[in-house]
């Protein structure tokens, strides 16, 4: 304790390195990436991210020795206009350091994993030069995320918010000139655009909220805004409700909630480490962090809180049902992520900030684990596919084989992410299998895995305050366990349904070791906040920032019900998929009994089509109308061609040419000529050739002049 007295502020002077460590890695790879080997590139990037993690640990330590006091490190002056004073200040408190630890910790593990993953991915996609670019983007993402979580004002948070959005866009479209199967297409690029555009809608809401905050509280700095919000005496004042609802729009965009979740499933077009890092573990939780950070404002607007909670709960259930009907291994996890984000948003909406943050952390562990394991499965299948290409179809004669290898585009389009191509992988990929099992149990919420504790805390809070939310989330939890069970049976059990699955190979250690670490965290992560007297560590830690929240003891009824639901779901999934494993070419056994319901789940409830029908198509028709009728026919044909061009033509032809030029200037000039002619015609008569008449004229002239001079 004497340390806190000697080192006030602790290691807060290190805070800028949260941003500058990834920046250093990024710049090194940017400059030297072309010349360095893949191992060196990956090591530099991982070290940069690891350095940010070390800084995060030291900062968390500094907060704890200062008893949770908010530490600030002002790096630079940014905007000083009128009453708006914005600096680049790092805010180090228990909430932000928690996020820093999650982002840099999970981020570093994923960096290491990506060293192995991208090594093979760039070879399967035939572009090895893109290896360095991937790590540059990954470091850029860590940097932007650190700006987001360490910002001390809404605008600094927004800078990071946009930065991670940019990285998300860049990485979804990492293989921008192909689709997920490597065929030439703009599909991946479209997915990136979709994510970016949908997020713009959310960012619009965020910006409006920021404007409203500044308009009314005259500041964007968190503490000043919160002080202003606390001083409002009215509950549910229109002002705070408006701010919180616009913030909710931003949250819905970034954290993939109804109605803006549609970009996240498409974002799976990015390489798998990206899906794990950005679209599962860290970036998409920024919305949850935003609500938790804005807790003092939300507390004054219970109406908005209710809406946030309901949005989260409905999203949780809705996305969980879609996940049941998906065949792509990553799409299942994507909808699962949306669903779990729904849990978190519901939790922070209910005011259960600790539960929400707790679930954010555990979810980061087990969903990153699941995604990375799925990446391992996909690569394993890809290896098996290439083995099969080389050995089965044309393996008999070397001459043919050589020809086939040179053939870069296989005739058969093989989807290594399709679960219908898998089966029986537990024998060929045992390590990945066990890691996947751990991730699944954690996600399904089975005791004593991390997901059990965090999900239970959310359910417990919901059961006490929002019964509707509780039921929605419970059903969502049931579906969660079911679709994860389905996935396990489809991927790892039964017989291989494709030649690639027969020859699937286990991934190298550089990929599996980070997964082992994540698996350990998924097992033990619940220890962060055990619901027993004397524990609740995360709750007490976050209470420094968020105020003391209720630390609920374990409720055996709630825990029992959710565990029973999860186990039942897994049992049902075994009955459907495990007992009679799927055969190659067989349709999903749920399709027959569920009929159109399954068709709906399979097709994501036609939400994308609905958006097309309700928004995009009418919008296109409107644009068509605006372009064709208003712009082309009215503006171009009528206004320009008829009115302006006609007027101009009339002006030039009639008014200027005919009347002004021809009949005015030309006529005058012609008249001058005619007049001169006429005058000279008359004058030539005077030139009669008689010298004496000239002399007379001279004489008379002289007389006239003299007469004038004399008699004037």
């Amino acid at each position, binding site marked *: 304790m004497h340390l806190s007295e000697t080192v006030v502020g602790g290691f807060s002077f290190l805070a800028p390195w949260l941003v500058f460590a990834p920046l250093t890695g990024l710049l090194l790879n940017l400059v030297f990436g072309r010349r360095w080997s893949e191992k060196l590139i990956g090591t530099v990037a991982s070290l940069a991210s690891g350095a940010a993690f070390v800084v995060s640990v030291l900062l968390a330590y500094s907060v704890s020795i200062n008893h949770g006091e908010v530490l600030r490190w002002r790096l630079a002056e940014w905007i000083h206009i009128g009453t708006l004073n914005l600096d680049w200040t790092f805010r180090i408190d228990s909430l932000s350091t928690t996020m820093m630890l999650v982002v840099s910790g999970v981020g570093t593990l994923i960096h290491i994993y990506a060293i192995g993953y991208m090594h093979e991915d760039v070879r399967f996609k035939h572009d090895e030069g893109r290896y360095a670019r991937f790590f540059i983007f990954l470091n850029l993402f860590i940097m932007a995320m650190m700006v987001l979580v360490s910002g001390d004002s809404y605008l600094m948070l927004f800078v990071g918010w946009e930065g991670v959005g940019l990285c998300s866009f860049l990485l979804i479209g990492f293989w921008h000139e192909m689709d997920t199967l490597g065929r030439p297409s703009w599909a991946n690029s479209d997915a990136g655009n979709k994510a970016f555009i949908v997020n713009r809608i959310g960012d619009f809401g965020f910006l409006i909220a920021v404007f409203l905050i500044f308009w009314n509280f005259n500041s964007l700095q968190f503490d000043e805004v919160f002080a202003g919000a606390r001083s409002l005496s009215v509950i549910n004042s229109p002002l705070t409700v408006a701010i919180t609802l616009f913030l909710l729009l931003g949250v819905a965009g970034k954290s993939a909630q109804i109605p803006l979740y549609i970009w996240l499933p498409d974002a799976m077009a990015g390489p798998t480490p990206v899906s794990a890092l950005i679209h599962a573990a860290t970036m998409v939780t920024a919305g949850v962090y935003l609500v938790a950070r804005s807790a003092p404002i939300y507390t004054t607007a219970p109406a908005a809180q209710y809406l946030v909670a309901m949005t989260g709960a409905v999203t949780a259930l809705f996305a969980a049902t879609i996940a049941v009907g998906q065949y792509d291994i990553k799409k299942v996890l994507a909808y699962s992520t949306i669903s779990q984000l729904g849990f978190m948003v519901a939790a922070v909406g209910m005011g259960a900030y600790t539960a929400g943050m707790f679930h954010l952390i555990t979810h980061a562990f087990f969903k990153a684990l699941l995604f990375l394991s799925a990446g391992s499965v996909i690569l394993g299948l890809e290896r098996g596919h290439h083995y099969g290409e080389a050995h089965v179809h044309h393996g008999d004669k070397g001459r043919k084989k050589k020809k086939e290898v040179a053939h870069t585009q296989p005739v058969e389009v093989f989807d290594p992410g399709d679960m219908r191509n898998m089966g029986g992988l537990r024998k060929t990929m045992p390590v990945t299998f066990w890691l996947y099992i751990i991730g699944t149990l954690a996600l399904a919420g089975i005791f004593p895995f991390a997901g059990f504790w965090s999900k239970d805390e959310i359910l417990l809070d919901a059961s006490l305050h929002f019964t509707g939310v509780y039921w929605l989330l419970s059903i969502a939890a049931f579906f969660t366990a079911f679709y994860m069970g389905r996935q396990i049976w489809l991927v790892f059990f039964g017989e291989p349904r494709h030649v690639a699955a027969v020859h699937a190979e286990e991934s190298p250690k550089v990929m599996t070791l980070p997964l082992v670490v994540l698996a350990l965290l998924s097992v033990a992560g619940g220890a962060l906040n055990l619901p027993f007297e004397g524990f609740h560590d995360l709750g007490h830690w976050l209470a420094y920032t968020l105020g003391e929240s209720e630390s609920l003891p374990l409720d055996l009824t709630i825990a029992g019900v959710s565990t029973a639901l999860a186990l039942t779901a897994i049992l049902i999934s075994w009955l459907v998929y495990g007992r009679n494993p799927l055969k190659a070419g067989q349709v999903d056994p749920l399709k027959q009994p569920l009929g159109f319901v399954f068709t709906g789940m399979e097709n994501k409830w036609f939400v994308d089509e609905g958006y097309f029908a309700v928004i995009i198509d009418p919008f296109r028709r409107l644009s068509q109308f605006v372009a064709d009728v208003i712009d082309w026919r009215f503006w171009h044909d009528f206004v320009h061609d008829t009115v302006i061009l006609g007027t101009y033509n009339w002006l030039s032809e009639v008014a200027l040419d005919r009347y002004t030029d021809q009949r005015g200037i030309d006529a005058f000039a012609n008249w001058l000529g005619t007049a001169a002619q006429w005058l000279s015609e008359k*004058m030539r008569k*005077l*030139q*009669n*050739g*008689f*010298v*004496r008449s000239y*002399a007379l004229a001279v*004489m008379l002239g002289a007389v006239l002049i003299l007469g004038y001079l004399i008699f004037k």
Partner: protein
Amino acid sequence: MIPVDYYIVLSAILFTIGALGVLIRRNPLIIFMSIELMLNAANLAFVAFGRYYEITGQQSFYTGQIFVFFVIAVAAAEVAVGLALIVEIFKTKKNINIDEMNSLKG
């Protein structure tokens, strides 16, 4: 002493005779003589005024008289050119009637 008015009147008479001669006569030689008459009328006026101003003391240095010399010189040159022209015209046209020399008629 004869008053200057007399000289002026004489000069005017001479000038008028000369002018009428130029206007009326058709023979270029006569016209030249008339021109000489007009020039000499002017010379007379120059000399008369020159003397008059000298006597009245208003001007000196024989300004009027000097001008007369100029006039006589210019008149001589003019007659020389004019007579040469008349000779040439006569050579081509065998005639020096001034009214027939109207080829510059407009």
